[in-house]
């Protein structure tokens, strides 16, 4: 197979990601790096889901952290109030997020453009407000502690354990998303992104496809939220907040909308950058803002598509 053909298969990105997950720890000087890696994969998972919604279906969501919150609190409330094992609560969170996405998605996805942005923003804020106020269930603004994950008697503890759990899950989610994009649903989504009217004319059930991808992206975020809560041992309403939603959108856009691989890159940039910028102390925030601006001005399609375009240009 020629190099070009290989590059265009689905296999290469999957192999690349597996390679990254396995090889990276060889370079880790301390457990701290495992934590960073785990966070990158956890957020990367949520970003892949959001990318399906924003990049492929072209629907903006400024409230996606709400689903992070649902997943996170599922693994907090479930074990504490219902005695359910944590791994079951992860699934419960996924089901709950899917159900809420179904209920909320139908009306909200009728909105377009900035109106959809405000609709999803409102949704995210509502989740955050409920989580903050219902202290009896959620522990209120200071949150509640989350019992650790136990699988077949093995306790998932420590940054290195979570690195592998989140890495493997990310690979799974990554491959699933790639498959989805190559499937008829994925093609329909791309058609919708290009022109909803044309897609309608072609007979695609636009509303249903949009709802499907909204539900799928909600489920991705829920798993990510559950993992984050289990990893940290603590969950607070901030996880569902507006700033968290903006962070997710930034990861999608920075990495490249419509690029599944870009989701990982975007997550990596926004998780690692604040760690690197700590040396600048008071200037940290200003620099972060400046870097985001510079990236978006010069690599306006996102890092991965822009770099790919440059490489393609060289090839000629």
């Amino acid at each position, binding site marked *: 197979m020629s190099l070009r053909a290989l590059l265009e298969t689905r296999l290469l990105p999957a192999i690349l990601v597996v390679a990254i997950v396995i090889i990276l720890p060889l370079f880790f000087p301390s457990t701290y790096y495992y934590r960073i890696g785990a966070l990158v994969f956890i957020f990367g998972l949520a970003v892949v889901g959001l990318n399906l919604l*924003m990049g492929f279906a072209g629907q*903006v969501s400024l409230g996606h952290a709400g689903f992070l919150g649902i997943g996170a609190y599922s693994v907090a409330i479930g074990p504490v109030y219902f005695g359910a094992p944590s791994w079951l609560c992860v699934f419960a969170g996924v089901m709950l997020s899917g159900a809420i996405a179904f209920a909320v998605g139908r*009306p*909200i996805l*009728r*909105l*377009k*453009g*900035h*109106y959809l*942005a*405000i*609709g999803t*923003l*409102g*949704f995210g*804020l*509502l989740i955050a*407000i*409920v989580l903050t*106020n219902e202290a009896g269930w959620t522990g209120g603004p200071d949150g509640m502690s989350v019992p650790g994950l136990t699988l077949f008697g093995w306790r998932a503890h420590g940054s290195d354990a979570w690195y592998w759990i989140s890495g493997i899950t990310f690979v799974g989610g990554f491959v699933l998303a790639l498959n989805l994009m190559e499937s008829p649903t994925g093609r329909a989504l791309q058609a919708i992104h290009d*022109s909803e*009217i*044309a897609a309608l004319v072609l007979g695609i059930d636009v509303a249903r496809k949009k709802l499907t991808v909204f539900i799928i992206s909600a489920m991705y975020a829920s798993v990510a939220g559950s993992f984050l809560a289990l990893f940290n041992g603590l969950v607070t309403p901030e996880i569902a907040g*507006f*700033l968290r939603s*903006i962070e997710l*959108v*930034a990861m999608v*856009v*920075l990495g490249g*909308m419509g690029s599944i691989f870009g989701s990982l890159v975007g997550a990596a940039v926004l998780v690692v950058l604040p760690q690197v910028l700590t040396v600048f102390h*008071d*200037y*940290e*925030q*200003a*620099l*972060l*803002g*400046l*870097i*985001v*601006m510079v*990236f*978006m*001005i010069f690599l*306006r*399609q996102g890092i991965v598509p822009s770099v790919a375009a440059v490489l393609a240009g060289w090839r000629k």
Partner: protein
Amino acid sequence: MAELLQFVFSGLTVGAIYALVALGFTLIYNASDIINFTQGEFVMLGGMTTVFLSLAGVPLPLAALIAVIVTTAVGLALHRFAIAPARGASPVALIMITIGASIFLRGIAQIVFDKTFHSLPPLFSGGPIRFGGATILPQSLVVLAGAAVIVVVLWLFVDRTMLGKAVIATAANRLAARLIGVDTRRIVDFSFAVSAAVGAIAGILITPITLTSYDAGTLLALKGFAAAMLGGIGSALGAVVGGLLIGMIEALSAGYLSSSYKDAVAFVIILVVLVAMPQGLFGRVKVERV
């Protein structure tokens, strides 16, 4: 009755604040289709700059004027150095640039100003106005008046001046405007500058009520954006009505339902309205050409 009146006054106070911020979003959107999340920082800069200048000894009116000029310059710089070079980028990328810019401005504000809270003296000293058993601050009326004046000035500008017509033309169809000789880049420059100035004035007017700090912009931008969308993005009147409506809903919810959920009620109502009227209360129905 006095109780209801007090809630209404509270709603007007808070609503007028949202309305002023929402107007800033509308202006830039009209000229360039961009949602500018830095609008909150314009409001913050207006208030904080005035505070710090007057702490340094500059007389208040002069401090306010300088603050408006500085903020306008920042708005222009934002367009020139951050937005204009990214012309042709997708709408989401442009929004991300404005978000990056707002983080940047907040970061700079932390260093130039400080991290604590500040206030400004109200325009009219003297106590609250009592009416029908309820009280309202004179400054709330000042903010309302400010919003009204800005709407009227904008309407006159668009209706009576050539420059205003050029802004409308740019908003309607950029290419067509350029074809008839409108310098669209200048127009967008201008709209950013005016939005920044409106934001700064808003900041100076509302600070006596809301207090200010280097990160006051974030929540204001959120509420202002919501108000602008509720009213129908692109309509100045809609922005004001949207703002007042959200303020009223919050105050009445706090008064009659639950103070913890007042923001939630407001957002639920926004969602319901938007689902029923997908282009907002006064928004133009966007015709999608195939």
